[in-house]
């Protein structure tokens, strides 16, 4: 792999990360607010009190501003696989494309079609029909998340598929396995819970702001009650089911969990959990370690005697798999010349689970068939993700998760006591508004940056997945996205602030005037 290609890969990754992280600013709030709108409107329909209608409408406006950006930036995601990851798309489209298409058919179509009726249908539909529309929007946005995470879960843990040399791609063996992929299921629950926390904290924080300013007090108190209860349940679910995710990465993605832990060598089980430390990528050591005994072993393996493998041991395993993959690579080369070579077919079949590992060598040599032991070592070392980044991203995320549980516990406590005047708490809730976004973005980094060097775990290295475009085109689009998205973010924040300032009561009077 030459340096031009390295640059192409890096730019493609930068662009994908940038657009995905930007898209993911809007997704959690859509998930959280849509569910809360459904709850709020249910209260309205059940109690018949007008104020709940106003509450639903007000949060609905903020939801709408956010939703527009979510849709806009989501289109980029749907097409970027083709534009920038063409070889990836071709290599796994048979499997990966299906959940994306089903997401459109089953979820996004419903959500997008009904969203217009949500805003324009207040006077055209009965109370119950409108409530049904709102619930369907909430359900559809959750279904969207489900299908996207089934697709993503497959990248993390590619089940139900096999490599077909005739078409040079992965093909489906079982959609059932793909759907019930444990990684996808855990990720789904973890991600939507994180979305609910974002929505709840958004409502809690803005309502607290109103209470501090002594505006819209009745409105704010009611919103806080919903946010506190919903938020606490979700915050607990994120952490508990985040643990579930940890357990699963333990089985499927050993390297990711070892990197998150900066655990260089296998410990005697059960392994300890490092709370603090300075991991060093070069020397393979972690300095100033502070750890809790047994904890990691329990989280990751749910047992006292199963070891959690260390990075150095995992590199040794990778090395074995690379060596085992080389015959598969050689057989594949033969089959490309003569697809009917039966002995090559048999060799490929026998070694095909490790073909992806042999492809890692392509970064260090043009011909993996003749790789030297030094190149094999390099390729094995390349399976180590960026340990310090994962180590810290994970710790901040978990810390924030714990903080949210505390915050919502307090919120629930104060609302149960009918105490809405704890100034320090209200201030804290306002300051905390951006934190769920930070946690969500860190979560994305742990999951996706931690997947490197693979785009499909164990199957296709990231650097092979890119399109054969030119770097100048990529520089154009990376710059374009950076400028364009920044401008959009500014407009979005400006409008959000404007409508938050206007507040719900203003909204009512404005309607009465016009």
């Amino acid at each position, binding site marked *: 792999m030459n340096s031009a290609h390295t640059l192409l890969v890096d730019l493609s990754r930068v662009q994908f990360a940038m657009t995905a992280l930007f898209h993911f600013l809007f997704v959690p709030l859509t998930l959280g607010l849509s569910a809360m709108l459904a709850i709020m409107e249910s209260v309205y329909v059940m109690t018949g009190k007008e104020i709940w209608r106003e509450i639903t409408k007000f949060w609905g406006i903020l939801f709408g501003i956010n939703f527009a950006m979510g849709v806009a930036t989501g289109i980029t995601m749907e097409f970027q696989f083709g534009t920038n990851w063409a070889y990836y798309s071709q290599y796994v489209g048979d499997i990966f494309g299906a959940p994306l298409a089903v997401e459109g058919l089953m979820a996004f179509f419903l959500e997008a079609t009904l969203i*217009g009726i949500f805003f324009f249908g207040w006077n055209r539909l009965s109370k119950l029909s409108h409530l049904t529309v709102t619930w369907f929007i909430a359900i559809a946005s959750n279904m969207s998340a489900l299908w996207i995470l089934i697709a993503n879960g497959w990248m993390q843990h590619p089940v139900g598929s096999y490599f077909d040399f005739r078409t040079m791609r992965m093909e489906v063996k079982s959609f059932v396995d793909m759907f019930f992929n444990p990684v996808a299921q855990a990720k789904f629950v973890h991600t939507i819970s994180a979305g609910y926390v974002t929505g709840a904290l958004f409502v809690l924080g803005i309502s607290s702001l109103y209470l501090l300013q002594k505006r819209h007090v009745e409105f704010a108190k009611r919103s806080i009650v919903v946010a506190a209860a919903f938020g606490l349940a979700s915050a607990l679910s994120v952490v508990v089911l985040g643990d579930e995710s940890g357990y699963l990465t333990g089985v499927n993605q050993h390297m990711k969990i070892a990197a998150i832990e900066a655990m260089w060598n296998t410990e005697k089980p059960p392994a300890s959990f490092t709370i603090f430390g300075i991991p060093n990528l070069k020397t393979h050591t972690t300095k100033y370690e502070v750890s809790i005994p047994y904890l990691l072993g329990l989280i990751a393996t749910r047992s006292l005697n199963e070891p959690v493998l260390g990075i150095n041991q995992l590199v040794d395993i990778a090395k074995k798999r690379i060596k085992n993959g080389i015959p598969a690579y050689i057989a594949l080369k033969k089959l490309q010349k003569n697809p009917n070579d039966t002995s090559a077919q048999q060799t490929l079949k026998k070694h095909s689970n490790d073909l992806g590992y042999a492809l890692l060598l392509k970064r260090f040599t043009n011909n993996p068939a003749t790789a030297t032991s030094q190149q094999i070592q390099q390729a094995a070392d390349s399976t180590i993700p960026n340990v310090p980044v994962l180590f810290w991203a994970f710790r901040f995320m978990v810390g924030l998760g714990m903080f949210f549980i505390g915050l919502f516990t307090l919120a629930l406590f104060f609302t149960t006591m009918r105490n809405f005047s704890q100034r320090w708490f209200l201030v804290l809730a306002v300051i905390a508004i951006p934190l769920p976004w930070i946690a969500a973005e860190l979560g994305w980094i742990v999951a996706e940056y931690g997947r490197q060097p693979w785009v499909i775990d164990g199957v296709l290295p990231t650097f092979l997945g890119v399109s054969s475009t030119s770097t100048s085109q990529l520089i154009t689009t990376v710059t374009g996205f950076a400028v364009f998205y920044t401008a959009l973010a500014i407009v979005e924040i400006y409008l959000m602030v404007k409508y938050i300032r206007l507040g719900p009561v203003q909204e009512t009077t404005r309607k009465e005037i016009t």
Partner: protein
Amino acid sequence: MIDYATLRIIWWLLLGIIIIGFAVTDGFDLGVAILHPFVGRKDKERRIVINTVGPVWEGNQVWFILAGGATFAAWPYLYAISFSGFYLAMFLVLAGLILRPVSFKYRSKVSHPVWRTVWDWLLFLSGFIPTLIFGVAVGNVIQGVPFHFDETLRAFYTGSFIDLLNPFALLCGFLSICMFIMHGGLYLGIKTENPIRHRAIAFARVAAILVIILFLLGGWWVTTYMQGFAIKQIASHVGPSNPLYKQVITHVGAWIWNYDIHPYFLIAPIIGIVGALCALIFANVVSSRIAFVSSCISLIGIITTFGASIFPFILPSSTNPNESLTVWDASSSQFTLFIMLIATIIFIPIILAYTTWVYRVMRGKVTDDFINSNKSAY
């Protein structure tokens, strides 16, 4: 399970149906976006025009997203090569499609005239650019696109962005713009009152005439000057999807050979022209509904003509014709096509049902009153 060759044909048809779904629904949204600064002269008028599509455009746009998803799932080679090959053009489309929801939603949220004028022109571009590029892309597919594979089936595209803007492709681009202006104008004919309605219909009529002229011109060009493609020999229609195992010949006028083999294919171009003609004639009759339906039929005819002419090709390669993508060697596996077909059979009727319901709820003309009584109006 259904036979692989049949499944491939079905998915070729389904892709066509999804693209048609996009054109007849989101087509008028794009047309309205292009027309709105011209048919709406005052701010209130522009708001009325925008609000005719306000409650429905979001759902309509999903046809486009679904077309992307379905191409990815059913025709992965097509998805990979066309999107990466038309790289900068795709990004212009994306930029347009990102601007659109934002323009819709944000335009009327601030009342300063400069803010609104800026968003108006951005909204215009968000309709104009994607519409132009869709046509340009089709124009390039008809001529063949420069790409080839290496032995690992990695595709290399050797053209450039400027090459895409050749005369024939631009003709197709203008045709596409006229199609959506006709369509959007007639939609406004149903949804608005005079004077907006009057202006919109005038635009639609001119566009309908241009649609007929440009379509005939394109047809003449393809018949008499352009190299078409035809399969000389292919191992099997049910073989593994690998585009390297066939022989293709190119010949001037080869794109109309299908009409010799299957004369009934001629229905497609005929209804393309007759539809536009009826749209022109009925544009101002009663509610413009007949004209709008005629316009739908015209769009269906024109898009089907494209598909029928190049069948079984889906992306011909101009530099290595043998490596062109065809229905027989560029699809997903039989199993994926089958499962996706089941999902489609279940969900498309449901989608059509709730979409129809939404249009029913939102039926009627958009007037001043509508804008004033809806605080969520765009």
